[in-house]
């Protein structure tokens, strides 16, 4: 039973990684850039939701919507100001700019919201006999599953399906895939590459807002650096699953979470990070493009 409990914790943590990784992989797949500021957009989303719900007393749905709107706009503004002028530059130049944006967001949050931790409100809880209940129990309380876990997994699956349908069925989605294959050719076919990439960022940032809300619902301490570690872990998860692949990000995230928890439970809490990264290395040696990544044969 304890194994099942650990598995559930792992899935719960993994689903959070997965939802962050979806945003990472989406932006990477289309814009071909590692957006290191993604984790910090998550943090901004969480703060917006916190301010709306805890400070202004708005209902959770409004809080989540506000977070999505603010992050989407923020994502587009960042893209327009910082990344768009670098369209012709090397990918490393864009990477460094993304790091600059990441520093900027963290320090702006520090000034705006002070470094004091905020406890994120329990959005997914119901009140039974005056007590807040955040999950349900099975087998006489031996197995506990929190609502956040269930909601995160459902949200993950919905987002994954919608994104897959969006990229394969809609005009904009097809334009995105065209841009990811070959920007020049896409432009020749009459696709507005700039707009397409802006839309990608908008979607990616909107997803980041949802991820921020879910991350902080599961682990409610909110500080200006909240997004950075989960951001790196999610980036790892995205590579694990094959970066650019939407189902890959989902599976990569879940596996990473499960491996992390099981390594802590059965091997060593001290070395769990090292074990997670070791597994990642081994997987990449066996499958050099990640679990679900496409192996691109090089042209000679």
């Amino acid at each position, binding site marked *: 039973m304890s194994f099942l409990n650990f598995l559930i914790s792992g899935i719960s943590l993994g689903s959070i990684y997965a939802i962050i990784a979806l945003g990472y992989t989406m932006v990477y797949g289309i814009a071909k850039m590692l957006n290191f500021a993604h984790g910090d957009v998550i943090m901004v989303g969480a703060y917006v939701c916190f301010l709306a719900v805890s400070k202004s007393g708005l209902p959770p749905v409004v809080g989540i919507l506000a977070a999505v709107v603010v992050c989407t706009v923020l994502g587009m503004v960042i893209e327009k100001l910082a990344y768009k002028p*670098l369209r012709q530059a090397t990918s490393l*130049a864009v990477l*460094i*700019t993304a790091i600059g944006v990441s520093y*900027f967001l963290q320090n702006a949050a520090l000034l705006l919201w002070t470094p004091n931790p905020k406890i994120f409100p329990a959005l997914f809880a119901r009140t039974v006999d005056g007590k807040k209940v955040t999950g349900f129990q099975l087998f006489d309380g031996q197995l506990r599953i929190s609502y956040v876990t269930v909601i995160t997994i459902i949200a993950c699956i919905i987002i994954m399906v919608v994104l897959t349908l969006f990229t394969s069925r809609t005009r904009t989605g097809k334009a995105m895939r065209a841009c990811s294959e070959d920007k020049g050719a896409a432009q020749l076919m009459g696709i507005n590459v700039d707009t397409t990439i802006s839309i990608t960022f908008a979607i990616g940032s909107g997803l980041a807002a949802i991820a921020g809300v879910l991350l902080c619902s599961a682990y409610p301490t909110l500080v200006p650096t909240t997004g950075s570690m989960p951001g790196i872990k999610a*980036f790892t998860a995205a590579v694990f699953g094959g*970066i650019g692949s939407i189902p890959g990000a989902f599976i990569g995230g879940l596996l990473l979470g499960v491996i992390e928890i099981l390594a802590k439970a059965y091997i060593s809490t001290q*070395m769990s990070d090292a074990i997670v990264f070791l597994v990642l290395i081994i997987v990449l*040696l066996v499958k050099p493009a*990640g679990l679900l990544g496409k192996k691109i044969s090089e042209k000679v």
Partner: protein
Amino acid sequence: MRLNKTSKKNYLTYAIVIVAYVIMQIVAGGGHLSSSLKGMLVPICAYVVMAVSLNLTVGILGELSLGHAGFMSVGAFMGTTAAIALQNAIPSAPLRLTVALIVGAVFAAIVGFLVGIPVLRLNGDYLAIVTLAFGEIIKSVFNNLYLGIDANGIHMSLLEDKTNLLEGGKLIIAGPMGIGGIKKIANFTAGFVLIMICLVVIFHLVNSRQGRAIMAVRDNRIAAESVGINVTHYKMMAFVTSAAMAGAAGALFALNYSTIVANKFDFNTSILVLVFVVFGGLGNMLGSVIAAAALTILPEALRSFASYRMLIYAIVLILVMLATNNPTLKGFFASLRGRFDKNSEKEASAS
């Protein structure tokens, strides 16, 4: 003697480093150097070495590494351990420092080789993430490593302190507490010498047969392979050289502070060094030297902005990246340079 463009640039790099060193020494000798700048000289040297060594991997070899701080960590811990262990055996501080730097470099090279075996089989972003993973693993290992020395020799254990040192023994690396009570034996001159050695090694490597092979691998791996270049061999050569230099830099850095912890050499430090490299220009060693110095001083120079300091640092970083990649500005400077070159040619022909 006619110099070609590359060697001209190499000599310019040497000259600037030497001039900077001499100026700093003169200013410091006159007592005009602020404590703030004086305190930064050694870390600047260490970061410069980090930057040029990472430039070898990223700029010359063409592989993105996100775990360079891991090698710095190996050098810092092993070099410092050597310095502490040899405290009595080698009383002369400069000699002990030299030994520490060499030990740091050797251990980092060994780790670089071991890491290189799996890493160099991968490409692009997958290679980058694996270097990140190794950086994190190295950090984890040092956070859990206990190393002590007593009359019976060296004792080591992981996770828990099981070294059971004899009376008079000394626990050097104490897990998460890192190394404490380090004698500060690093100095600016040693840093300067280390930079010069690294530059000489890199320039010679780049201009040699091996260097050309490395760059051929960077530009087109398949073409390089088809003309009989052993890709893995040359990749490994550049990677290990780069790791060794980072190790020496780590030892220099650690011996400038009284204490060192594994968390110092995390992902953020790797990224910081990468920022130096990109800022200075890929494959451009002079650029790396200047960028490392400038970006180490910048946050200190911004102290008068108090709480807005790091915010401004971030803005400067973004603006410089935007400005240096702006086609209009680039064109403007290119035309300036063109005019300058023409003028100097005219002068040359006139004389």
